[in-house]
């Protein structure tokens, strides 16, 4: 991937900032998401909560299904590939997807290597639960990062943990003397240049969203408070009682996350939230996939 293309891909993530990216499984849901104000949709056959319930191997979605969603909406359409699945990524590039999520939500195809994302023209977003993972994905060519959280649970604790961990590690790196950054890079298992960027700039070199377990407007506002630049909502919307209303409320909560009076109004009468599973009740820890 040429430098310009990588830069254009980072730029698209900049345009998504302050927005909500919603998981959708049908063109109908995609239209509901767009009407509610989603800044992009993630097209997938089964939302994480159902993947978790169904078990078995979870793969890239049918390209025909993704095309149906591309035709239904005018906002960017993302889709997931399995970690390390180069061929699935090539297929999504061939159908001109706007962003590929190399995602721990699907069953990993490779338990050692991630995709060399620099070989692609389409952008990639990857999950990370700490600074080391984030910078390794960026070195591989990811142009956007999201916390992993724990998808399909409706439990925000892991997204919070990952966002706090990443930002704490960034602050620690900033506080170091210049000559200590070499050792820090070694400890983080990341290239020196990226550690140096974080040391000098106090942030990742790409946009960083929150994901995994966001189910309410308050969850979205919490993640923005903790430094997220936007929010992915997976199962939280279409597993709830009134998806259109909840989706719109989460969009506005993400935009106006500091306004508690507004959040109180947005949180009222939203109907049933997704049931959710506590993190200690789940069998598969998706966040552990791909370090």
């Amino acid at each position, binding site marked *: 991937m040429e430098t310009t293309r990588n830069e254009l891909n980072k730029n698209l993530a900049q345009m998504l900032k*302050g927005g909500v990216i919603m998981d959708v499984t049908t063109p109908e849901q995609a239209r509901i998401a767009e*009407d*509610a104000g989603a*800044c992009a949709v993630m097209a997938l056959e089964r939302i994480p909560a159902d993947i978790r319930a169904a078990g078995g191997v979870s793969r890239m979605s049918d390209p025909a299904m993704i095309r149906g969603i591309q035709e239904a909406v005018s906002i*960017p359409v993302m889709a997931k590939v399995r970690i390390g699945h180069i061929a699935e990524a090539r297929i999504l590039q061939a159908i001109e997807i706007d962003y590929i999520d190399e995602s721990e939500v699907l069953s990993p195809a490779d338990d050692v290597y991630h995709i060399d994302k620099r070989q692609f023209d389409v952008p990639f977003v990857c999950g990370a639960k700490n600074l080391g993972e984030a910078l390794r994905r960026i070195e591989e060519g990811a142009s956007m990062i999201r916390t992993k959280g724990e998808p399909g649970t409706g439990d925000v604790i892991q997204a919070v943990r990952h966002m706090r961990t990443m930002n704490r590690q960034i602050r620690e790196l900033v506080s170091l003397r210049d000559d200590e950054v070499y050792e820090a890079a070694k400890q983080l298992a990341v290239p020196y240049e990226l550690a140096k960027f974080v040391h000098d700039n106090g942030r*990742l070199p790409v946009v960083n969203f929150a994901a995994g377990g966001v189910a309410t407007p308050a969850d979205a506002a919490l993640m923005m408070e903790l430094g997220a630049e936007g929010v992915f909502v997976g199962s939280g919307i279409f597993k709830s009682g009134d998806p259109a209303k909840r989706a719109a409320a989460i969009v*506005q909560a993400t935009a106006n996350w500091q*306004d508690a009076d507004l959040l109180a109004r947005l949180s009222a009468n939203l109907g049933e939230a997704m049931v959710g599973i506590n993190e200690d009740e789940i069998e598969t820890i998706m966040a552990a996939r791909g370090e």
Partner: protein
Amino acid sequence: MVVDVSYISKEHSAGAQQAASGVTGILAVQGAFAEHAAMLDQLGAEWKLLRAAEDFDNSIDRVILPGGESTTQGKLLRSTGLFDPIAKHISAGKPVLGTCAGMILLAQRLDNDPNVYFGALDATVRRNAYGRQLGSFTATEDINVFDADGSHAAVITDFPLVFIRGPFVVDVGERAQVMCRTNGNVVALQQGKMLATAFHPEITEDTRFHEFFLSL
């Protein structure tokens, strides 16, 4: 290039709270609004983010509509109550700059979308005119700028253009003047003190376009 970390929490420039006038209001409901703020800081101009209707106070005499998703921004413009004060600002002929999604919000007509937002820019604009993200590109072109009476004033030479799932103008009405074309398509318009670009001057290092906007 990502925007400086301080802009994740910065809501206004140092002097904007005290200023009685001369503040640029940047629509901040979704998108790349922080990038415009960073650009205005480089130029020493006062600015504040517009997140809610009450943020639009008397100190604001120019408005920026940033890049992002126009459908998202259009919806939030209504629900935040920011639509009316900004519409009033535009119809009074005061300075406004719309980039990418901002151009769509300003347009009188969209040729592939039934929505019309401010409906102020005398032109027909096509959303996602270059297709999906693989169609995003960069170019370098000269930009023509005009005086208040519509006469040609100057040229900003060799300006870097960055298009991200960008629109272009398919039909220019009588009141709008073409500032820039690339590959034969109109990608920037001026209509009095209204500027609209299909590209993103705020994500380049070049401050000249913003300087011109601040001179209006």
